[in-house]
């Protein structure tokens, strides 16, 4: 599923990232690469998402999140 479908306080494992060259390089440089774990901190409509990954709180535009595929991790 896509990252934006992951509910608040759930953890996911990034499986795939898709988008244009610019998006790919931006998302990689902030650390969201396949294999890394993300925790969804905030997922409100009409607001950027807040996720936590690699010790970093990251704000992500909702539309951009569509290209990030995750698998939910049940702890």
């Amino acid at each position, binding site marked *: 599923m896509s990252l934006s479908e992951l509910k608040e306080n759930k953890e996911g494992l990034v499986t795939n990232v898709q988008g244009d060259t610019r998006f790919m390089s931006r998302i990689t440089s902030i650390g969201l690469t396949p294999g890394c774990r993300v925790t969804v901190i905030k997922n409100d409509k009409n607001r950027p998402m807040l996720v936590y990954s*690699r010790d970093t709180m990251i704000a992500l535009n909702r539309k951009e999140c569509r290209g990030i595929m995750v698998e939910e991790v049940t702890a």
Partner: protein
Amino acid sequence: MSQSATIALLGQPNSGKSTLFNALTGLRQHVGNWPGKTVEKKEGSFSHAGKEYLVADLPGSYSLSANSDEEVITRDYIASGKADVVCILADSSQLQRSLYMLADFAGIDAPCFLLLNMADVAKDQGKQIDAEAIEQKLGIPVIPFSATDTKAYGGFYEALDRALTKKARLNVEALSGQYDSVKGFREICSLIPEGAIAGYSPMWIAVKVIENDKVVLDRLRNAVDAETFGRIEQAKKDAQSAVETGGCKFAWIDEVLGSAVTKESKKVSLGRLDRIYTSRVWGKAAVIFTVLFGLIASFIPALPLMGVGSVILMAKAPVGNALTSIGCPEVITLIVTDVIIQSFSYIFKMLGFVFGVTLVFGLLEEVGIMARISYVFDNTMGKLGLQGKSVMPFLVSFGCTMGGAAGARVIDNWGQKVLTIALAWAVPCGAAWATIPMLSSIFFGPGAIVVITAILFTMLLHMWVTAKIFGSRLVKKEERYGMIMELPPYHKPRWRALFGYVMGRTKETFIRVTKVVLMVCGLFWILSYSPSGGNGGILYRIGVAIEPVTKFFGMPWQLFLSYVASAVGKEGAIGVISALYNGGSYGAAFTQAMSGGGTAANLSEILLANVSRPEALAFIFAMTFNMPCVVALAATYQETHSAKWTARIVLYYTVVSLLLAFAAYHIGLLIW
């Protein structure tokens, strides 16, 4: 004995780069533009142990890709060899992620060393970092550091010296080994001759080819023969993209950090403050409250400078009298009092604003609140093609446009910064808000509230239209992307460095702005000056001559000349009107009004007797949406570094304010 060395500072946003830069250089810094580019170039200098150092603060970005001019400038500067050493900053509290910059840098030929900044924060989080173990793997000096701690700088100078003497190069063998697993990498790498693009290794170029880096591909096309380039392109087709090379970079970082970092795992959650800022209900209100509170707070440090401005203005009469008494020609006396003293009074009042706003905005940025503001207003401002932060200059502009323009410097993209300033001009400033209700209530009584509402509505429409008109030129479609940004942890500010930065910016603004203000004030004075003392002067003659035209916009010559005066300073508009309708000369009215005095006691009677309601409405709109004032113009020039764009904005506002006056007048004629 004074040798000098150049240090380039490289690091991701929030890595503490600016704090280090400000702490090292203090007042000895200068902001300009990169040659031929619209990207800000920050340079400074310091001396240590008898040696002179130049520091280039490279633009902050998350990587060295070709996503923006900033990134291309950064990597080309490093590769050019202009810097003797590159100081790379990483955030110890988010070490894995922030080392990405180092991994992206690897393969550019330059001596370097690594600062593990915010070592104190990492320690508080229970992380232990073995810098020596990392140093051995990387082959460059690596030290734990805290830019906010004065005692940490000994270690910095020592590492700097070691990197310079050893000409320390980053060991990229292990990284290259990681890339070997990427399909096509080896082949592309072998096709690229050493030195194909000066300063970059074949490994670095190959990785950028795989990442589909347009700038690198174009240069490579010119550097190798067509056949080789064809083969490179063929091999690239098999390769994946930035995702795979990015994976390699992080795998290498994990390998480097290995057992050098130990941490206690913690459950993450938002702090109390962040729960408010990120709340759907309270977020926007909290941001607006924060900015307003910051604005009020910024008046405190601004007051002394504004006081100086008022004191200078008080000198006008005594100096004028003194000059007259020693027999100085009237023209010279007037130039001294009405142009020079007047300008410096403006300039100092403005510096007060610049000082206060720079301090408060700089503080919000350093503490980390600015990132929250960006987050909260991302969606709203995104519709105008702007960043969330742009909301701040807009709010400031309700008080003072020059403060808004000065505050726009927190926006790191030049196009978005210029667009923000261009839109901030549409926000009526404090002086306009003092005039609008006064004029409206004289003419429309309780209807004033309708006029004020119409002004606010027009402002929003104006901003929207202006964003459409200028937006496509300033912020290109492909540069409009959604937010991908870190929300940094809150930091304690480093006051000394912050003050150093603020003083530096204020000093520079003073030097730059003085010229512009003197020039524009001088020009207006010459145009208004009438040697006979009576009605005369170039502006007056033009105003009277073109009255048939200005009447079309709803303004008889008196109102039109007040409108012209409102471009210098809106506080003067009413003064000019009352003087002109009382039979005063324009030249005298103009200079008196600019000194703040001159509202006639019988203002409402003269206005009601001479001006019709549609004309009043036209004037209110024309004055409100005219160029804010001379100092706002100077501040705009100072922040955009572009005379062309400043002129464009001035012209645009003049035309639009006249169009609005025209519309208001003709709507008024239909009603009354």
